[in-house]
């Protein structure tokens, strides 16, 4: 009897300590003093397509219907009449940790040529580990045809981390993509002869532009455009400068916003504002010569998963600001810049869930995909 009572008491005690610790964690979450929740919410969140898996990326057809990648390896056309069409012809995908089917991007001339680009984790030999592939295919009769791998990263790993995987075209028709450091930070990001920890630039057919920064460097991967990255998973093209902007998962306290410039070294892991998740130091250096400083870094880390520039005029003063998905805190963060300095940050779609992609439709509505829920449309209140 005594024994039972003791057991009960200890269970209660464990339960109580668990609770209090977790609540401490919760207070820590709200420690980010620089971000605010707006007093008045002048939008509604409308669930337009339900999906209980992870929609990693969305892309809009001219009629505003959506082509969505599901991380587990599905490509779904969500039609405006509510139909869901499973697109056939995907390659075999390496489902491992953070890796799976990732981004989708239409060719700038998709309306005519029906070409699209995909990133996905790929394992060449079973059990040997994998990395990120970029492929192009043509969409015809709900199938991918003429499937062609444009880039295959050679540094493979069984680690589950940092596949990168975002795609973006610039105004000159170059295709940019990210590959994360694949959990091998001391080897890949600073070495131009290895894949991983880089932003790449290729032509729309997969060939490599001759004016890429390391094109003539012996043994370098010619497709590299910038290096020293950890895991960039948000990317947009700035509407006025035409430059590629990224947000990047850093270590604890080291998430960054960067403007990607040709041939530059963004410093990972030689410089960072973050520390290891275990609390230990990665480096004491926050800056070093010939390494770029981020435009902004997040403390605490938000786990930035996606990034979009608001072009739409449907949301009043939101126009011109940025949206970043915060996987960790389950909201979208709206960021206002003045002269490339962050001057205001607010939470959008708070507590909705983990955002994976955020994008404007052709008719200017912001859509966000939320893990295990589906795609939401942000509708301004009239």
């Amino acid at each position: 009897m005594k024994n039972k009572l003791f057991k009960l008491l200890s269970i209660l005690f464990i339960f109580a300590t668990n609770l209090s610790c977790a609540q401490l964690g919760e207070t820590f979450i709200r420690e980010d003093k620089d971000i605010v929740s707006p007093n008045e919410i002048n939008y509604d969140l409308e669930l337009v397509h339900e999906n209980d898996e992870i929609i990693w990326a969305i892309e809009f057809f001219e009629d505003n219907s959506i082509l969505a990648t599901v991380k587990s390896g599905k490509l779904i056309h969500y039609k405006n009449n509510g139909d869901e069409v499973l697109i056939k012809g995907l390659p075999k995908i390496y489902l491992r940790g953070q890796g799976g089917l990732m981004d989708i991007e239409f060719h700038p001339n998709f309306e005519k040529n029906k070409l699209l680009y995909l990133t996905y984790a790929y394992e060449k030999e079973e059990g040997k580990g994998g990395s990120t592939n970029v492929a192009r295919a043509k969409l015809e009769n709900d199938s991918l045809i003429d499937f062609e791998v444009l880039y295959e990263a050679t540094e493979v790993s069984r680690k589950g981390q940092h596949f990168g995987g975002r795609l973006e075209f610039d105004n000159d028709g170059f295709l940019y993509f990210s590959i994360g450091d694949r959990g091998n930070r001391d080897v890949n990001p600073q070495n131009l002869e290895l894949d991983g920890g880089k932003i790449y630039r290729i032509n729309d057919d997969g060939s490599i532009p001759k004016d890429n920064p390391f094109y003539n460097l012996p043994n370098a991967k010619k497709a590299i455009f910038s290096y020293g990255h950890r895991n960039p998973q948000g990317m947009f093209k700035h509407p006025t400068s035409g430059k590629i902007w990224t947000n990047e998962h850093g270590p604890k306290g080291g998430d960054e916003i960067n403007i990607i410039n040709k041939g530059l070294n963004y410093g990972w892991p030689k410089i960072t504002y973050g520390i290891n998740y275990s609390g230990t130091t990665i480096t004491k250096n926050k800056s070093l010569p010939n390494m770029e400083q981020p435009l902004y870094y997040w403390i605490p880390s938000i786990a930035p998963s996606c990034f979009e520039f608001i072009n739409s005029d449907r949301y009043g003063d939101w126009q011109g600001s940025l949206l970043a998905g915060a996987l960790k805190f389950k909201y979208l963060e709206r960021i206002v810049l003045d002269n490339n300095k962050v001057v205001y940050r607010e939470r959008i779609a708070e507590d909705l869930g983990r955002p994976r992609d955020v994008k404007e439709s052709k008719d200017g509505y912001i859509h966000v995909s939320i893990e295990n829920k589906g795609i939401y449309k942000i509708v301004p209140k009239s």
Partner: protein
Amino acid sequence: MRVLILLLFPLFAFSQKDSLSISIENGRILYDDFCIRCHLPNGKGQIGIIPPLAKSDFLYKHMEESIKALKFGGIDGEIIVNGVKYNSRMEKMGLYNDEIADVMNYILNSWGNKSDLMITEEYVDKLKK
């Protein structure tokens, strides 16, 4: 003969213990890679969002279901862990069966958890959806 058995017994016991500690060590590396971001370094998860693994009543009561969740990707619907409701499905991590055994052995022997049962690859192989 008796001497031989006596001699062999500690050897056998030693190798048993050894394979478990190797499995636990492998599991720790896998945990740090695949699980730590959500379930946290202390295995406590995030209350109401990510269930704890440390001293989790659910884990012990529903061991097979928990290992299946790791193998096939999540548990559908609501579960109650240490008196708190959870309803967010874990995605499939793509671990091999030997890795699932290792990470389970690490979880079952960390943060105050203790288990006499060693999970083996053969056991995970046999689990069906």
